[in-house]
């Protein structure tokens, strides 16, 4: 590779990534040379500003057509643009939460807090735009390793330590499994480029090889379920969510999960949709694996929603709730209808807004006493009616009640499940039944907020960052629930991600 070829690339399409990388580097240097006793809050604003600039540069790129650089290891297509937007928005909101995070012992490593979020974000963004197994994996690891550190950032807090430890061990196992699966794919095709792999696999006729490929699929699915927090790698979620600092929990439940779905879609659609499978009637490998995905989706919804019923700790409750939501999203994936990517994007957007909003309020309420018991929410309506109503909105949206974005998202996923032939009645029935089960714990929060007398009587002070997050999320949840046309109109420009494989 010479300088000429290197300069020849359209580096402009990587602008958002470069901005995040630049800000993260600058922050780490500033943090290093800043006196220890200085307030690091401005660094947080700097990080938020960086993410906002990245979002602006991304909107500038929206009109740019599909571009591929660096031998197709980085590609800017509709899929990448749409999901990067979600990741960046989520990260900006999480950073705002992080600035107002006040645990009892204070945050010792506030600077690290900010730039680790950014490196994790960078990893996630790389994944959305990757056309190669290597860059996909590097992005995944960058996200994971940053998250491991973030989870353990409360050094003196034993639950935080436990959470980081569990996270890193589970993460290591799942990464190994994913990598093992990838090695099969590489072995069968001799390439790491997704397009070349797809081309090779479309000519693969030998049933022994196809068997091996199916094995690779399952290994990767199982390994990646760690990032989605879905069955079978969901066990870490409650412990890690509980122990990690609240903004990190919010990050894991939203940005990291979105990134998980990004890699799942990217990898499986580009590789396995083209591969042949030897069933009763020949179809694509992806379609023949539908039942396995559907099984995992069903199990995820059932486990998430039923175990959530018994939780008293709100962070654990939200951990199981987020497992359940991963299940709903997997239904969209398992259905493999033509609305698949659209519906999952919409659901992830809605989930981002409602879940981050709920976490913002959760952080404010739990920070004040340090306890995370559900009773901390008792009498919230008396202490701060507006905040209580906002929380009500987020929880209603999570429960999928009409008038909120969560409902439209669920409808879209159901639509996908019913629009295919044969329709996925069983899966949809499980989804709707578990949604009703989820009413119990979501409305349980309501009984605390609205019916119970207050445990503390002092009015609840809401810091600036949290106010911004709650406002943005509430507006989004409500407006996209009542006028979902706005978001769908925006989605139309991506033309259903048809340039995915091109």
């Amino acid at each position, binding site marked *: 590779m010479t300088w000429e070829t290197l300069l020849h690339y359209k580096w402009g399409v990587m602008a958002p990534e470069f901005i995040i990388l630049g800000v993260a580097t600058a922050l780490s240097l500033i943090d290093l040379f800043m006196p220890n006793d200085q307030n690091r809050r401005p660094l947080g604003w700097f990080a938020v500003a960086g993410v906002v600039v990245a979002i602006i540069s991304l909107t500038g790129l929206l009109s740019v057509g599909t571009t591929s650089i660096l031998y197709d290891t980085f590609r800017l297509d509709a899929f990448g643009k749409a999901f990067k937007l979600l990741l960046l928005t989520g990260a900006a909101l999480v950073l705002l939460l992080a600035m107002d995070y006040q645990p009892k012992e204070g945050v010792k490593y506030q600077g690290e807090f900010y730039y680790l979020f950014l490196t994790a974000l960078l990893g996630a963004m790389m994944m959305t735009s990757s056309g190669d197994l290597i860059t996909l994996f590097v992005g995944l690891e960058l996200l994971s390793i940053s998250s491991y550190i973030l989870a353990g950032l409360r050094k003196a807090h034993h639950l935080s330590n436990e959470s980081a430890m569990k996270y890193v061990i589970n993460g290591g196992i799942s990464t190994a499994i994913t990598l093992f699966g990838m090695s099969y794919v590489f072995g069968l095709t001799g390439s790491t480029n997704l397009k070349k792999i797809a081309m090779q696999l479309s000519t693969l006729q030998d049933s022994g090889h196809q068997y091996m490929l199916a094995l690779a699929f399952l290994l990767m699915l199982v390994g990646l379920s760690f990032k989605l927090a879905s069955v079978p790698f969901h066990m870490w979620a409650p412990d890690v969510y509980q122990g990690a600092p609240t903004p990190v929990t919010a990050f894991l439940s939203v940005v990291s999960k979105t990134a998980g779905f990004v890699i799942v879609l990217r990898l499986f659609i580009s590789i396995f949709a083209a591969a042949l499978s030897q069933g009763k009637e020949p179809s694509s490998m992806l379609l023949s694996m539908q039942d396995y995905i559907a099984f995992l989706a069903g199990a995820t919804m059932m486990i998430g929603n039923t175990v959530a019923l018994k939780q008293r700790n709100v962070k654990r409750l939200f951990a199981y709730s987020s497992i359940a939501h991963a299940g709903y999203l997997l239904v969209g994936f398992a259905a493999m209808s033509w609305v698949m990517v659209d519906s999952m994007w919409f659901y992830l957007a809605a989930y981002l807004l409602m879940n981050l909003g709920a976490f913002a309020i959760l952080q404010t309420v739990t920070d004040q006493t340090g306890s995370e018991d559900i009773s901390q929410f008792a009498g919230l309506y008396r202490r701060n009616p507006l905040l209580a109503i906002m929380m009500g909105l987020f929880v209603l949206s999570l429960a999928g009640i009409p*008038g909120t974005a969560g409902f439209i998202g669920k409808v879209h996923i159901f639509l996908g*499940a*019913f629009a295919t032939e044969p329709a996925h009645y069983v899966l949809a029935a499980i989804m709707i039944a578990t949604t009703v089960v989820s*009413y119990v714990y979501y*409305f349980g929060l*309501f009984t605390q907020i609205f019916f119970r007398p207050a445990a503390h009587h002092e009015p609840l002070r809401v810091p600036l960052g949290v106010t911004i997050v709650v406002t943005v999320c509430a507006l989004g949840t409500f407006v996209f629930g009542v006028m979902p046309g706005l978001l769908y109109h925006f989605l139309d420009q991506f033309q259903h991600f048809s340039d995915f494989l091109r």
Partner: protein
Amino acid sequence: MNDTYFLSLLVFSPLLGIVLLAFVPKTQEQTIKLLGFLATLPSLLLALFAFGQYLRGYDLSRLAEKHAWLQFGKYSFLPDSAFSVPYELNVDGFALVMIVLTALLATLAAIASIHIKKEWKGYFMLFLLLEIGMLGVFAAGNLLLFFIFFEVTLVPMFFLIGKWGYFEKEKAAYSYLLYNGIGSAILLLVILILFARTGTSNIAALQDMLRDPQGAAQMLAPISDDLRYGLFIALLIAFGVKLPIVPLHSWMLRVHVQAPPSIVMLHSGVLLKIGAFGLIRFGMGLFPEQFERLATFIAVLGVINLLYGAFLAFVQEDFKMVLAYSSISHMGIVLIGLGALNEAGIQGAIFQVVSHGLISALLFLLVSIMYERVHTTMLDRLGGLAKAMPLVSGFLLAGAMASLGLPGMSGFISEFTAFLGLFKAEPMIAAVGTLGIIMTAVYLLRAVLNMTYGATTHNVTEVADIRTVELVPVLILMGCIILIGVYPDMLAQSLEATIQTMMNGLGG
């Protein structure tokens, strides 16, 4: 009059009240109650105006409105309008009657809400939201919109029961939430299966596609016969929870007893009727063939409802429980009428929906007036009411008479026509059902006579009789009941077109 926004205005006018209430300090009890009452008036006036115009021959289809709202993506291989959900409202005679009933009961229930003791502001905001949901259900022009309004009633009801109810209010609220959550979940599945397979959720368009084979060609994916049965039975269960049909009724007993009486007026007067409305509009309207096949089964379910409710009402100790079981029993008559599958039967069923809405609202209004004074609804502690509260007990007796079907009142007309229909179709089942009518007289008279003429108990002495503000709604309800009783043609006229469409679908 700008026709295009008339229905929207009608449905969403309580919103104005919600916004205004938000600015009133929460300690201003009188202002809040007055505002809450006033906010229900615009809908009522608009509904009455439309009804008056309709009776004079105004074409309701001119009220229909339609605006683009949402499309689940445009796909090149699908027709342009596929998977779009417009915001569309329209009414026919049946829906308009239900809207008038809803608006009327909402206003009267707002008056009855003077007995609410705490947090009036939150109460009335939720109350008005509930009204929007109920009005919207009847005006919705497509299934998805119907479902959205249907669910909009769910959340305010949960809070109204759970916060302002009696001792076991939270349990009642949860039981309400779960049963209705399951009911609406099943309903959502049906709606979305139809939507995904046909690409539309417009009720009229679906009727075309499902009823005649030519329309079926427009579907995106076929709907097999088996699937139709499945969908119909799912609808029967979904609306059966709401109605309620007997094995699915336990939640509504709790709600009747635990919720504040002003809310029960709406619950029993309107919300239960949404079940009947849905069953007629969607069960019968979209799946006439399946309905016909299962008609006998539905009639039998109706008779079970009727008898089960009647016999259990007879042994209740609490007057509210008597009324709750009486509601179950009376909803049986709706099923009986529908099961008859002929014009008289369907007319009787719809009459019963309206009539029972008025009667149960009246009875619960009286319960609320009574409870306010004697703080109990247990029958054995209410003896001798006639001496202390002659007017209240007089009205109670009149309400009971209307409920048991005394000629000259609305209950008689509906029960008579419904049974007339069933005797024509299934004389054996109808004969068994008449036993229920007798039982109705027995349990209602037992309860009411116990209360009015029984031995005087100490807590009943020295209580004031009805006040003017309470008297007005009672008189209005009595007036409507008698009006329908002596001049049923007014109602029959407005329902004629709807019933005719139903009969066409049934191949009659």
